[in-house]
């Protein structure tokens, strides 16, 4: 993988060359039509941007030239100077020098000397005549034309490419399976080759869509400053893991969520400086944005060292909002109570503030993360702070899934939502309050037959009976929002990477399915949506 430095440099080069091209174009236009304002404004803007970029990258000489050029263009714009006579020559020469400097940066060579140019620019500012050497007066006819090494591409085009690759992968799997069924060695070897090529193509397209998390994180210092000012709080933001890469569309989807979480952290998490001093904390609150890689997933954390989440307050609020009854609420563990924060209609803010109370709650964040098969977790210690963790797939295209069989058809569940799989004898399951319970890793987990869950009407599920279960039961333990649920299926099949196609209209109204995938044998396989299954179970449990 390329280093961040190198990537930034390539982006700088691409932009700088583009600026240089635009400058050459605009100054020629200005020469033909000295009264025209538009090219002048453009030149001013381009010089300004180039100055900022060059200084940020540490190319101070280039920054200085751009700065002085900007000054002159500013003077011409404010009509203090006219674009005529000797100024023209100096400015044309200046843009050539800028071009030469950019080229030198690109080739890792020493930057050309710009002393005489800088002096001339200085003289112009003072209203003196520039001293042009013969060399500077001579038109440089040895100039080279060059094209940038980077291309800008619309994300739409990459989306299309990714969709096509998805289709290709499905067909590839089909051909591969056919090859094995037919047993023709030539076909098999061609299929194996196709398999590898398609794989590589898929990863290349996925790679082309990756962007640094930093491209989003770097927008936050400003956000934090503004929110902190409005809330009268002092906040220090630390950012890490900017060079972790993630699919651009995933970053797009989480943008609002991250903004919401950061605003929350400052609005609800961090206390005022006075409160912090009283609590024995430094007056400046800490908010951290961190990205890290965990297995195939990208973790993004928003952490604050503020007041933390008061579990008891959440518990009573959930009861008063009618989300749970008082009895159930009392028996919930702290993590389960915190998970209630993600329920629709739950908002902890006592009063609606400009920053945090926009009528969208954490449930919206949760839905956004769910929509791409990610997870949202919250950890908190009262008085110490809160951490929200977003577990995101690196790419939207391919997802790990567990395939299983139910009523002779294949279904898939995303691995992201699966805790574990177990096979239990009926004796190992107990009926409590009409519900099956299994002990999994020391915790009682409700278990339900997926068949009953899918085929139930609007009425509650029938009371469970272990007598109806025959033989070992294959159970998939899914986890959503801290709730574990066991689903009895007919048979586990295998683990596989799948390409999910969204459900087409009008069937997309059924939210139980996150989409469909096509298996190697051409069969259509429904991908079950764990959040929706959990909701159905909660609504219908006996």
């Amino acid at each position, binding site marked *: 993988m390329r280093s961040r430095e190198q990537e930034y440099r390539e982006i700088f080069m691409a932009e700088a060359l583009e600026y240089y091209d635009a400058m050459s174009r605009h100054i020629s236009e200005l020469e033909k039509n000295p009264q025209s304002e538009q090219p002048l404004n453009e030149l001013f803007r381009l010089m300004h941007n180039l100055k900022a970029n060059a200084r940020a990258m540490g190319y101070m000489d280039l920054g200085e030239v751009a700065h002085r050029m900007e000054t002159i263009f500013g003077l011409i714009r404010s009509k203090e100077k006219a674009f005529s006579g000797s100024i023209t020559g100096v400015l044309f020469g200046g843009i050539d020098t800028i071009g030469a400097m950019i080229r030198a940066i690109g080739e890792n060579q020493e930057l050309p000397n710009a002393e005489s140019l800088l002096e001339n620019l200085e003289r112009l500012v003072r209203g003196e005549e520039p001293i042009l050497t013969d060399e500077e007066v001579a038109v440089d006819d040895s100039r080279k034309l060059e094209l940038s090494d980077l291309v800008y591409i619309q994300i739409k085009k990459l989306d299309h490419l990714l969709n096509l690759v998805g289709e290709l992968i499905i067909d590839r799997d089909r051909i591969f399976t056919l090859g094995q069924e037919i047993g023709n060695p030539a076909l098999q070897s061609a299929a194996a080759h196709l398999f590898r090529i398609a794989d590589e193509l898929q990863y290349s397209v996925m790679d082309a869509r990756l962007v640094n998390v930093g491209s989003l994180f770097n927008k936050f210092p400003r956000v934090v400053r503004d929110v902190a000012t409005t809330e009268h709080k002092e906040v220090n933001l630390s950012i890490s893991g900017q060079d972790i890469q993630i699919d651009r569309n995933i970053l797009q989807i989480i943008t609002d969520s991250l903004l919401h979480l950061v605003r929350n952290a400052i609005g609800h998490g961090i206390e005022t400086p006075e409160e912090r001093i009283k609590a024995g904390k430094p007056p400046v609150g800490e908010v951290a944005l961190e990205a890290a890689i965990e297995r195939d997933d990208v973790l993004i954390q928003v952490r604050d060292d503020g007041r933390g989440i008061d579990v008891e307050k959440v518990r009573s609020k959930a009861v008063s909002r009618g989300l749970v009854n008082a009895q159930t609420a009392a028996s919930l563990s702290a993590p389960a109570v915190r998970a209630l924060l993600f329920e629709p209609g739950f908002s902890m803010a006592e009063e609606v503030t400009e920053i945090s109370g926009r009528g969208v709650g954490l449930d919206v964040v949760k839905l956004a993360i769910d929509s791409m098969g990610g997870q949202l977790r919250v950890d908190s210690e009262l008085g110490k702070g809160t951490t929200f963790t977003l577990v995101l797939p690196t790419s939207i295209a391919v997802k790990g899934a567990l395939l299983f069989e139910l009523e002779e058809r294949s279904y898939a569940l995303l691995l992201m939502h699966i805790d574990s799989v177990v096979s239990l004898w009926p004796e190992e399951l107990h009926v409590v309050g009409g519900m099956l319970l299994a002990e999994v890793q020391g915790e009682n987990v409700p278990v339900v037959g997926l068949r009953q869950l899918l085929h139930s009407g609007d009425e509650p599920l029938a009371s469970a009976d272990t007598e109806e279960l025959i033989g070992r039961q294959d159970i998939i333990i899914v986890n959503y929002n801290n709730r574990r649920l066991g689903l009895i299926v007919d048979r586990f099949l295998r683990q596989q990477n799948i390409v999910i196609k969204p459900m087409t209209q*009008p069937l997309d109204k*059924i939210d139980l399915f996150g989409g469909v995938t096509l298996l190697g044998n051409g069969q*259509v396989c429904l991908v079950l949506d764990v959040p929706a299954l959990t909701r159905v179970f909660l609504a219908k449990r006996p």
Partner: protein
Amino acid sequence: MVQTESGGERKPIVQEALVQLIVFRLGTEEYGVRIEQVKEVTITPDIARMPKTPAFVKGIANLRGDIIAIIDLEERFSLRRGKADVSTSLTYTLAIEAHDYTIGIVVREVPQPLSLPVSAIERAPEFLQDSNIQEKYIEGIARFDSRIIIVLDMMKLLTPSEIMQLNPRAESSTARSRT
């Protein structure tokens, strides 16, 4: 359409415009769909049943990479008289372009194309209002060589709400707010 209505009265000498239908059998009667609404006719592909859908939605199938819903109109209009379920025998599927999606209609016999003059299609008589196939889905009745073909208006028949017979349910309300 306008042309032919006035044309019918004047008994035109010029050859009358033809309408092409794809004709198929549902129950005991023949039905037709305008050919421009039919994307293709194919042997019914493997159908994956889909829980939580009305019984006449047979499921979804892969049609050249498109995932489409397959519906059974015999079941939709209660036209089946003790015959076996369509899923047990070889059947054909008409892929129909409806609104912004494609939908498959499963039929037992090979659908046939048929050209007939536009004037052969008459408006549906009133009595059909009481039948199972509500009048609003019927564009007209075609009489041709002593055959009677019921011409369906697929655009009305295949709206998302018609297909899903959607009743908002509590459990899905949160999910719907996502879009």
